[in-house]
């Protein structure tokens, strides 16, 4: 690449960065936020609100961030009640987005998804465990997985990332709704 090209790209990048839209608060947001301040003295209240927010967010496509951090010390697996969960409706595919955030680029990492009975990964019928080799870029790496529930039992999905003789495991509780999550029958 020529210096001229490189300079042009530098200029283009700066122009594009300047063009990024300015975030604007939704109408009434500041008033609501200020009003909430008077009523939200404690962290516990905030956490309850967040828990409710997450439950609502799970009605839409869920997304899971997994911090791979393979260069960091091995963390303890979360306690049972700290495991994130997702609710599926029977036989209705639902995409769960895993985001692996890695502190550095990783080549030849092995990713294994272990599924509970009655839960399948779309495109892999009948498979309880799927393993593949992947490379992670530095930063965030998106992996959408479409899950389908074939029985009402639910269970725990285990995602294990291995690289250079080290590994990280992440659990996700999969629950099955008696009705679709949006509450409509059938």
């Amino acid at each position, binding site marked *: 690449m020529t210096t001229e090209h490189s300079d042009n790209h530098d200029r283009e990048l700066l122009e594009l960065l*300047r063009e990024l839209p300015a975030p604007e*608060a939704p109408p009434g947001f*500041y008033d609501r936020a*200020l009003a909430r301040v008077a009523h939200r003295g404690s962290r516990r209240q*905030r956490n309850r609100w967040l828990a409710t927010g997450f439950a609502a967010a799970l009605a839409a496509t*869920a997304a899971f961030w997994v911090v791979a951090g393979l260069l960091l010390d091995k963390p303890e697996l979360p306690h049972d009640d700290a495991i*994130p969960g997702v609710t599926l409706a029977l036989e209705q595919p639902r995409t769960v987005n895993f985001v692996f955030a890695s502190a550095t680029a990783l080549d030849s990492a092995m990713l294994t998804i272990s599924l509970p009975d009655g839960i399948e990964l779309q495109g892999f019928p009948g498979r309880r465990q799927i393993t593949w080799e992947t490379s992670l870029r530095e*930063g965030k790496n998106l992996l959408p997985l479409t899950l389908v529930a074939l029985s009402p039992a639910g269970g725990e999905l285990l995602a294990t990332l291995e690289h250079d003789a080290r590994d990280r495991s992440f659990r996700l509780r999969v629950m099955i709704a008696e009705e679709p999550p949006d509450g409509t029958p059938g």
Partner: protein
Amino acid sequence: MSSSEHHLAFERLVRPHLDRLYRLAWRLTGAKDEAEDLFQELLTRAFTKLDDLVEIDEPGPWLCRVMYNLFIDERRRFTRQRLHVVDEGSLPGEGLAGMAGPDDPAENHARDVRLRRLDAALAQLGDDHRVVVLLHDTEGYKLTEIHELTGIPVGTLKSRLSRARARLREMLEADGTFS
């Protein structure tokens, strides 16, 4: 001071800075829901410090610093926890979803595509690089102002800015945005 007077005094102090704080929250987190949580957390925290706040000559920079520190604390918690459930808006390439722009994207499809690719590329950067490039190149902060906000030495900021731009350029060249 009664409770409502207390609240009014707080509102008078912070309201002139809300737009700037909201933008900062967006640039730090890169996602609407996280930005709004951070913004709310800042107000809640600042309200408990009202007695200190009224004594400060320039509440704006003070509020920005508190917000940055809250953001850093939250990121540390995030790293310790390892696994999180977040809303879709936080995914790479989705950061523009809740952001108002000057144009209707349908009227300028090519520009919209380029901005989405830039947004996705920004999401691939680490926080250290993403935040400095957004504050400097998008929001127009000087390096000295970013230093005052974050406490990071100017030399380090300069080198992060340079690496962030190089990485962004590389990604945008690879995906054909820059030909």
